[in-house]
């Protein structure tokens, strides 16, 4: 349970967002607001468009209709806006996507040096601080190929945090991990949540959702079906489709 009160102006706002892949209508009339400090968990069956939706937030995907505003900046074709948004939004991928030709430390300092134009020493201090936070300070000089999956994902989280983003997006961060490594990554994410980070997380980990989320969002076939705080979402889902999904996911 988070104890920070979300403030008034929304950090992320999606208004009537529609997206098509060719003829396929993948996002249908999405309306979503995320306040500062709010933690939103997005769940739903595969193919429901959840990944596509959060990838629209940092313009890794383009929406064709509707309006997306992030931290007050409107997301459109203007490169300046896109760059500004990406500086404030950090993303953690399912496949980690660490840069294999750079050491862990270099992975973390790359963007601060080249995008925020920090001196190397300062960037490295920040990097070591966040490596400490994700509990792998001694791996700084190793290469990603030498780390386990759980360690790599924690490095990926630290890499995004080094840019000191306002918002963190997680696209199924634990889906590619072996079961024994999921907890170490979730622990890091819980710690982040407790510090008041604005988070949008696509995940199947319902235990994590119950602990951390302020708002649960259920998506199916491209639309937002239901949106409720976790207490009500899990105990009393209002829509049939939500109920069907939950019964499958919570079966064991």
């Amino acid at each position, binding site marked *: 349970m988070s104890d920070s009160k979300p403030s008034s102006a929304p950090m992320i706002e999606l208004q009537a967002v529609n997206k098509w892949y060719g003829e396929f209508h993948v996002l249908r009339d999405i309306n979503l607001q995320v306040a500062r400090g709010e933690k939103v968990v997005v769940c739903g069956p595969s193919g429901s468009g959840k990944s596509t939706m959060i990838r629209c937030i940092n313009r890794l995907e383009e929406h064709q209709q509707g309006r997306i505003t992030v931290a007050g900046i409107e997301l459109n074709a203007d490169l300046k806006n896109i760059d500004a948004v*990406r500086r404030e939004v950090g993303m953690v991928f399912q496949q980690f996507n660490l840069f294999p030709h750079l050491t862990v430390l270099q992975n973390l300092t790359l963007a601060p040096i080249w995008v925020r134009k920090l001196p190397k020493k300062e960037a490295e201090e920040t990097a070591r601080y966040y490596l400490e936070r994700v509990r792998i300070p001694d791996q700084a000089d190793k290469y990603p190929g030498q780390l386990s999956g759980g360690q790599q994902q924690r490095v990926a989280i630290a890499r995004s945090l080094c840019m000191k983003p306002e918002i963190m997006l997680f696209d199924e961060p634990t889906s590619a991990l072996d079961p024994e490594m999921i907890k170490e990554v979730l622990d890091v994410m819980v710690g982040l949540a407790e510090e008041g980070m604005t988070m949008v997380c696509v995940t199947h980990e319902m235990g994590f959702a119950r602990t951390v989320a302020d708002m649960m969002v259920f998506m199916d076939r491209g639309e937002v079906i239901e949106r409720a705080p976790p207490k009500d979402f899990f105990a009393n889902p209002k829509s049939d489709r939500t109920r069907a999904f939950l019964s499958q996911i919570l079966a064991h």
Partner: protein
Amino acid sequence: MASEEAFLRTAPARPAPWRDPKIRAVAYQVAFVGGLVALVAFVIHNLLGNIGRQNIATGFGFLGREAAFGIGESLIEYSPADTYARAFLVGLTNTLHVAALGVIFATILGTVMGLARLSSNWLVAKLARVYVETFRNVPLTLQLFFWWGLLNKMSPGPRQAWQILPDVFVSNRGIVYPVPFANPAYWWVAAAFLIGLVVTIGFGRWAKRRQIATGQQLPTGWVALALIVGLPLVVFFGFGAPLALDVPSLQGFNFSGGSSMSPEFAALLLGLVIYTGTFIAEIVRAGILAVSWGQSEAAMALGLRSGQRMRLVVLPQALRVIVPPLTSQYLSLTKNSSLAVIIGFPDLVSIANTTMNQTGQAIEGIAMIMAVYLFLSLSISFAMNIYNRAVAMVER
């Protein structure tokens, strides 16, 4: 008890000799090597017999004899009165000359075409594809015949030479093109270029140190352009822009002035560059595609711009995939330059062939050719292994 312990402490008894793996290994190898040695002995026996019967000379003494044949083109001084050894040297320099130029131009052509295949412009991508598919699937030998036929047999005499560019003429005597007259100003321009290069490198280093210290990024690209291109240009114009060209002009039956390239050399270079360029194009394309899209996405998510993405994330990974097959293409090009013999360009194999015909010493000649190419191959492989080990990505 004690005796049991003592028994257990000794090593297990060796099996009978014919079942012992170590002895069998030795036996197999002895049999294998023995068989080979017997074969070689048989061959040598025949060889010596045939040499004696056919009165073939042996030994490398012929290298000191006078060659008594002319060589069409050479980078070093040569006359028929020189030794066979010198003739070989001429062949070697010709091979290295065409191979070096071939490697440079094929790399440029191949990289451009490889990137063109990845272009978002449909027309450019398709044209590059047509280039690759056309010239990759036709034997190099045929392509050489084609270019040589075009440049040597189908081109007109100098009097009716084709003019493909202002002052550049193609005739059956070769390609003539203008060169600037030697002018002291050019030395200054060259000096300016070198100075520009050195200062650019120094500036780059200083800019990097500054970035590490303060994070500030300096426009090294523009500075490099200004120094490497701008400075020599300034010097050039400072000297009054001397551009007096030695232009080839028809004098009687042939061109004089300018510089020329024999049809054989031009055909060989053209064929090698166009053929090898197709393979290099595919290698470059595969290398860039090999870097997963997720890498670009992660870089984008971190806020890196497209130029930075290319330079810091995609290209370093792509190069690791590109360089090994690229060096093997360089090797291939060098070996393919030996096809010069079919169009009469005096490379190493061609000259060795003439020598073997004249002296009858085929074995020594072929051995020398193989030794040279083997040396080149092994050097290039060795260099590539060092590069590979240096940039190998570290894994568990």
